[in-house]
């Protein structure tokens, strides 16, 4: 199939429809508003329903209802809107409702800014709402990856009966790039025989619910969820990595930041510095194991994020104290420059005292 030029936010919608998403419930917010705009036109044409909800809270609860009724559905927003959706996301996790939630991250806290940010890492990878739960979370670094991982997200949501997050940022949402829509590898999905579709008075009622009033019963339910999360940790980790064995410096970054880091890495290599890189594609589950491949020549690991330092906690867990971990961060919507990152790489390669 030939490539088409698409904006990141439009690609979210196009990929979702391609993946069989029939229902979109959303509320406008910069910098993700092109997603509901695109869906309002494209989804009815594809035989689906677009509904602009009265709030982010209502939108995610409509997703809860539609997902619980057995449909492929999604919502999308940006940081403050995703905070509002946390109630519905934890309920969907508890009730095991498959759905896809897209976050085009912007600066925070509070109303913050409308520029790109990665400051929702904790929220995306640690649950975000109340209770013990996890959501598979893809962090695309290009419009092509938006297409690939949004499509994959629907399969994974159905496979695990779990909400799946896409954590991108305002930059990827707004940029235009050439993309190709490839058919994802076919996957055996369980029948949705738990969904509320009407009993027809032919079977026992299906109940979609996250309430377990008896502590013992909730513990059993939670332990079952835990097993599911363990399977995701074993099977769903995705990352890109290179040059780890003989690296003097390893840089870790995801999403938009990883592209800037790649420019800096190239410049550093041209200067003769051995630089490796780890780019998590799933930020939960996090690719901890790959950190073991970092060789003994490494003088330091540089974590680059558009945040005050959130993924760095996972980098430290992965490193297990073997190698010093340094941080390069920008905040509030400020995007780092390759030069700024190169300087840090050079400092670490030269030996920081």
């Amino acid at each position, binding site marked *: 199939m030939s490539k088409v030029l698409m904006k990141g936010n439009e690609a979210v919608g196009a990929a979702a429809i391609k993946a069989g998403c029939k229902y979109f419930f959303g509320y406008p917010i910069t910098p993700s508003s092109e997603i509901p705009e695109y869906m309002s036109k494209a989804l009815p044409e594809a035989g689906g329903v677009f509904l602009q909800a009265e709030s982010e809270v209502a939108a995610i609860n409509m997703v*809860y*209802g539609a997902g619980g009724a057995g449909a492929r559905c999604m919502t999308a927003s940006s940081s403050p809107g995703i905070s509002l959706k946390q109630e519905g996301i934890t309920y969907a996790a508890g009730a095991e409702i498959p759905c896809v939630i897209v976050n085009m991250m912007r600066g925070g806290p509070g109303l913050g800014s409308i520029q790109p940010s990665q400051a929702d890492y904790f929220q995306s990878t640690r649950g975000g709402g109340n209770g013990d739960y996890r959501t598979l979370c893809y962090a695309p670094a290009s419009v092509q990856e938006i297409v690939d991982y949004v499509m994959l997200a629907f399969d994974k949501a159905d496979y695990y009966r779990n909400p799946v997050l896409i954590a991108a940022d305002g930059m990827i949402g707004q940029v235009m790039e050439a993309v190709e829509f490839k058919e994802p590898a076919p996957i055996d999905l369980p029948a949705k025989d738990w969904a509320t579709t009407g009993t027809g008075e032919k079977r026992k009622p299906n109940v979609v619910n996250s*309430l377990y009033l008896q502590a013992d019963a909730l513990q059993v339910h939670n332990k079952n969820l835990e097993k599911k999360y363990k399977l995701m940790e074993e099977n769903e980790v995705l990352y890109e990595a290179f040059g780890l064995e003989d690296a003097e410096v390893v840089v870790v970054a995801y999403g938009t930041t990883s592209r800037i880091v790649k420019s800096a890495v190239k410049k550093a290599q041209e200067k003769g510095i051995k630089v490796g890189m780890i780019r998590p594609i799933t930020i939960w589950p996090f690719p901890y194991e790959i950190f073991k491949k970092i060789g003994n020549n490494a003088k330091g690991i540089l974590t680059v994020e558009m945040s005050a330092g959130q993924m760095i906690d996972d980098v430290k867990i992965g490193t297990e104290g073997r190698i010093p971990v340094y941080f390069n961060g920008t905040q509030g919507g400020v995007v780092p420059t390759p030069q700024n990152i190169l300087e840090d790489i050079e400092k670490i390669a030269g030996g920081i005292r």
Partner: protein
Amino acid sequence: MTIVYEKSRGLTDVPFHYCPGCTHGVIHKLVAESLVELGVLGDAIGVAPVGCSVLAYNYFNCDMQEAAHGRAPAVATGIKRVHPDKVVFSYQGDGDLASIGTAEIVHAAHRGEKITTIFVNNAIYGMTGGQMAPTTLVGQKTTTSPFGRDEALSGKPIRIAEMLATIDGAKFVERVSVDTPANIRKAKKAIKRAFECQLKGEGFAIVEVLSSCPTNWGLTPPKALDWLRDNMIPYYPLGNFRDFEEGK
């Protein structure tokens, strides 16, 4: 022998957890009977609230979803958009619908969402132990209005049926009570008609049911019904506020 009365098959065999004298049981029965009599029990998908009737998903003999507090109309919207041919209803209390869920109920009505809402108003938060609700009457003592609801502090109680009747998308709005057998019969009629409104594809339908809470009102069940009659009905007048057929 002939059967003169039996439990509706619209209800499961799970025993109700409701307090003695609570009218949720009666209202559940009316909803279940209406679904059976309209022949749509197998097509019904209900949404339970947070509050005393949170466990309604165990009692109705149809597919059910349990919603977050106040969000039942949004959840019901999601279900109805996926299954426009099914009969979708929400069953909500006054804390759920009239306080934390006002945005969801107003906009479901505003969209003319083809769902049916059963709104149980007992002027108090029952499940959490008798706190003030948006529907608590002025002067009524609760655990968070120990000196009686003070209008200067908390305003007057909210009249949901009247408010929703101003919205074009709401095609059936009626307030009923279950304090007497006669009123229970009227309540049944209204609930049935609210489902008919959905079946005809007219738009949003809601029945506000005045209900008693002997436990948290601190009254015996008969005295609680007297209190409902003497105090709630004067402030919350019974009657139809909107019907999908002119002149009804």
